[in-house]
């Protein structure tokens, strides 16, 4: 075995690298729909960070090239050879000039980097806040996001809708970040860096997305059992779409007599303790607001797509998608679940 692989570890390593390259080729072909790459910024805070990152990367890259080259040169040039003389090489103890040089040069680099960084910190953190902008309160829960729009009196969950920023209509969105229980962190890499949601410590951040579309992110501070499935979607709508969405959200819940049975089950079960549906007796605030459930693409903070089948499975046993979610299995009969789902699917 060893003979065939070649008897040096370096040879084996080369084989392994070649094999890995083959794996890579197939591995990177996998599906990639929801990108969340911090190097694809679409909003000012993310873009400022991106350019600062490029600057820092250039500086550190240059340092790396120089130092790695020196190291490689030293290791190769000064390796022990058979032709070396018997006696030890010249014993050098140090040199104050050289020491001084490689202390002063890094200091200069650090000063430059620090000043650039501080400028961006102040630019993002202390940006003037126009009064007309949209304000959204983000509340982190174990394990979902609550989005409240105080100006419009609406509340939704996990999928944030905000207007596009354009030159004609510069609508920046300000997020106030609160937490209902433990620490969370709001992170949508293509819009901005992350900011934590800490109980008793309100935070703020702002975004001004300049391209319509959906942006993906998730909780970035370990918050317990289902931290992994606390996903965020940000829908950046054109101003018209956004106004339309707001109008729809402000309406009371659809009251379709065809699904009255499901509504009755919903209202008489424990559902109402945690969920709100405007226009019904359901006024709970522990779980997401369901008034316009069907306007959302996902359920369970992005753990599953919002389809009737998934809704049934979720109500039957939330552990199917998200073991550890605080929603209990509702212990309804299959018939009852069917009726409740029929009711829920009318909530556009």
């Amino acid at each position, binding site marked *: 075995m060893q003979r065939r692989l070649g008897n040096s570890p370096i040879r084996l390593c080369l084989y392994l690298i070649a094999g890995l390259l083959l794996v890579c080729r197939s591995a990177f072909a996998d599906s990639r729909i929801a990108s969340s790459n911090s190097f694809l910024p679409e909003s000012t805070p993310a873009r400022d960070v991106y350019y600062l990152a490029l600057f820092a990367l250039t500086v550190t890259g240059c340092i790396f090239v120089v*130092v790695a080259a020196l190291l490689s040169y*030293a290791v190769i040039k000064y390796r022990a050879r058979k032709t070396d003389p018997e006696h030890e090489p*010249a014993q050098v103890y*140090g040199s104050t000039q050289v*020491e001084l040089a490689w*202390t002063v040069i890094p200091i200069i680099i*650090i000063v430059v*980097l620090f000043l650039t960084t501080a400028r961006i910190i102040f630019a993002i953190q202390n940006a003037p806040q126009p009064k007309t902008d949209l304000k959204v309160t983000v509340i982190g829960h174990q394990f979902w996001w609550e989005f409240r729009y105080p100006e419009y009196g609406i509340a939704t969950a996990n999928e944030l809708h905000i207007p596009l920023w354009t030159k004609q209509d510069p609508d920046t969105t300000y997020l106030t970040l609160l937490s209902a229980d433990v620490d969370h962190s709001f*992170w949508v890499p293509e819009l901005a860096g992350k900011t934590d949601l800490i109980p008793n410590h309100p935070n703020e951040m702002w975004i001004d997305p300049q391209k319509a579309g959906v942006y993906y992110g998730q909780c970035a501070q370990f918050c317990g059992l289902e931290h992994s499935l606390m996903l965020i979607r940000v829908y950046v709508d054109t101003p018209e779409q956004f106004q339309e969405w707001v109008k729809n959200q402000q309406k009371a819940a659809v009251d379709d007599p065809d699904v009255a049975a499901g509504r009755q089950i919903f209202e008489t079960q424990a559902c109402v303790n945690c969920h709100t549906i405007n226009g019904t007796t359901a006024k709970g605030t522990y779980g997401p607001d369901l008034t316009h459930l069907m306007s959302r693409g996902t359920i369970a903070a992005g753990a599953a797509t919002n389809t009737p089948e998934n809704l049934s499975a979720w109500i039957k046993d939330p552990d199917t998608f998200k073991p550890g979610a605080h929603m209990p299995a509702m212990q309804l009969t299959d018939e009852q679940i069917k009726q409740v789902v029929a009711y829920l699917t009318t909530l556009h």
Partner: protein
Amino acid sequence: MADQTFPVPSPLNTERSGNAAFLEWLHSWVVTVDHKKLGILYIVYALLFLVVGGAEILVVRIQLAFPWSGIVSPGVYNQLFTMHGTTMVFLMGMPILFGFGNYMVPLMIGARDMAFPRLNALSFWLTAFGGFLLYFSYIGGFGLYGMGNAPDVGWFAYAPLTSKLITPGHNTDYWALSLIVAGFGTLGTAINIVATTICMRCKGMTLSRMPLFVWLMFVTSALTLVTITPLTAAQIMLEIDRYLGGHFFDPVGGGSPMLWIHFFWIFGHPEVYVLVLPAFGIANEIIPVFSRKPIFGYTAMVAASVGIGFVSLTVWAHHMFTVGMSAASNSFFVLSTEVVGIFTGIKIFNWIATMWGGRIQFTTPMLFCIAFVFQMLIAGLTGIMLSVAPWDWQLHNSYFLIAHFHYVLLGAIVTCVFAAFYYWYPKAIGRKLDERLGKWHFWLFLLGFHITFDIMHWVGLDGMPRSIYTYPADRGWQGMNIIITIGAFIQGIAVLIFVWNMIWSRWHGEIAGNDPWDAWTLEWAAPSPPPPYNFANDPVVRSRRPLWDIKHPNDPDWKYEP
């Protein structure tokens, strides 16, 4: 100079039946107060947890190789990464480095033992008790809810996730109490090393002649005094919250989760330097020997180490750029953090300058040290990237951060620890570790390390956060995660080769003699393995390289040193 060997008195020399001899041998290890035996105990203990913590993370890596893989449940996953982090920092990292310190510091300064041999034994057994207490949480019975669960709140244990309300059961208490106990052990060892360094140096061993490893252990220990105690204090507060109904970190009762974050990182950041400074010390010993030159810029190295020690106390909030501090505080911590980069830069340049003009022998310890310098360079530079606060808003808690600190912990610290094993194993055991197995270990480890952690930077930039047990399939992280997992297993195999090498060479390794590497510090003047009293006669030194002076009487070091 004591260079002759003495018969080592050992209970094993007496003729006894196998069982009784074994018990006596075991007893001698339990009651020992010899710094060398305790050092070995520390190291064996730490290696045990290296394997345990490594196994934990391999399960994690299998889980993450595919989205929705479902190998382990989220609860088990959270326990695994919490235990991995806690184990590697407290039960593996610190004990193994303090183990080397314990073994080497008295030998290097020409002392016969530590300043307080019995305190030394107490410290070890406290540390060991803490470690086993932490793992007892796995089997602590299932009677009460949460009793049989390992801690699952992350090794940073951010409040209020740790409150009794949100995490009931006793697993968090196991975490806090075991680390308090282990912390007292660490404190004892730190005190001991400081006292040993100050009071026990042999004749002529002035502070400016101490080997750099001793200097670094000294700085580390001094730093430990003010590093481990804040954690103990914070954990006592946590236990007051959990058991006495206090409100330090409880937001409902007016407490402040922010306070925990501050307190944890006041411990947590200097802790990184507590781990990395001894590693620097190891490189400071090995690189000169195999370059056949003295360390370049001894004074600068000492100054940079002491500098890092002080500055490291002012940088903790760079772990907190995302918690919403003012722009001014953020800027301050950017600056203080980048200052550390200057000191680390000085060290890296000095190591390269030591090799420059030398005659580099590519023995296994030297290979590890060269890899260490290269990886420390990268770890330092990604550290600079993370210190750029706005960029940290993107990188923090992403896999980029994980990659960065594993570059420090594994790429720098563990790599140096491996070097230390290959370098000092002959001293402790009397036989060399096998060079062929050593080369396999090195190259496989290097390969696995770079596969895993180089890719990890990318997946972090692509938005993958840490501490997640699964991820949506449509994010495009899967391919990279498979490769990371493959790399992790290659490292696992390399570590197994290393462990096998340790066992095999114990009986079959090449006999080392007192000074197998033609080195220059005092420990090589003692027999291998050293007798309980280390040196037959108290050594007297006149320079930083006492053995060089003996080997080159015509050209001794003390002629050139100030």
